């Protein structure tokens, strides 16, 4: 129990320091790297909560591929973020108020791992009991994700697909301009 507390305190300290560093830094590449590090610590946090599948996703998607995509997109940004001129008082104030409300609400949440918590009473026992018989695979997460909640995962896949197609459609405009490079410049500008 005490070791778990120590690990959690350690991870939260790292996360907090990364978050503060993220606010302070003005260099884009540091922001990207720190975001990646934040995701990695979040993945460790999920492991301490015994959510290995989520941790895996966070490590591969959050810390891995999104960092690469950010770096690829970063090439089109200026190297440094501009110093903001507007006052920082109002955003900071609203963040503190909202954070205070959230912390206050968290006192009403049931303890982590408590069996009488509403989340463990609703439909989860059905899934845990039924997974072995209905689906016949050991990983309950996969059976919930792909079978019990197949619709939701279908929706997620379509969301990924749509997002990819949307970004491609936005960037493809320039590509069609590239194909006409033998033509005079003015014509390209018209096409684009």
């Amino acid at each position: 129990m005490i070791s778990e507390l120590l690990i959690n305190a350690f991870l939260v300290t790292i996360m907090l320091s990364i978050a503060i560093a993220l606010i302070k830094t003005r260099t884009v590449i540091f922001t990207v790297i720190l975001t990646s590090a934040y995701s990695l610590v979040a993945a460790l946090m999920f492991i301490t909560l015994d959510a290995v599948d989520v941790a895996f996703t966070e490590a591969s998607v959050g810390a891995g591929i999104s960092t690469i995509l950010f770096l690829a997109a970063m090439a089109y940004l200026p190297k440094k973020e501009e110093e903001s001129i507007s006052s920082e008082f109002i955003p900071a104030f609203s963040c503190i108020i909202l954070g205070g409300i959230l912390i206050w609400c968290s006192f009403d949440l049931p303890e982590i791992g408590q069996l009488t918590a509403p989340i463990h009473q609703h439909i989860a026992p059905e899934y845990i009991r039924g997974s072995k018989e209905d689906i016949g695979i050991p990983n309950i997460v996969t059976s919930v994700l792909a079978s019990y909640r197949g619709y939701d995962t279908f929706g997620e896949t379509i969301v990924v697909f749509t997002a990819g197609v949307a970004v491609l459609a936005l960037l493809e405009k320039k590509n069609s301009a590239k194909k006409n490079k033998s033509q005079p410049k003015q014509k390209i500008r018209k096409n684009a």
Partner: protein
Amino acid sequence: MHNNPILRISTKILFAPIILFGLYVQFHGDFGPGGGFQAGVIVASAFILYSLVFGIEAGKKLFPPNFNLILLAFGGILYGGVGIVSMILGDEFLAYNILGSSPQSGQHIGILLVEFGVGLTVSNVMIALFNAFASYDKIKEK
């Protein structure tokens, strides 16, 4: 990066094991942590690593963009198709029980196909996004 021998050789060594690990995560998702989303990202990272080290043109030669777009759509179609097939066989949309001889084997087949569809879509979206961002640069300069 093209002339750095350490990067070139380690990429060549790492490429196949990354893909192998991706396939392991993909098809072992029933038994351990993993599944389509994670596996798709891992497989995509192998191709992106190749593009990063050998250049975007070499990456496109290895994995043609047209093929990439076809697979991107095919993942979603495969997922929906499993649902349609189960409807045609006389059950509800995405009810896998009817796909096999017993309910459990039907579930196995359904989950495997569905996860494969997710993996295909995710990996190809990632590769396509990276290619789009990486080739955007040259266009902008012209």
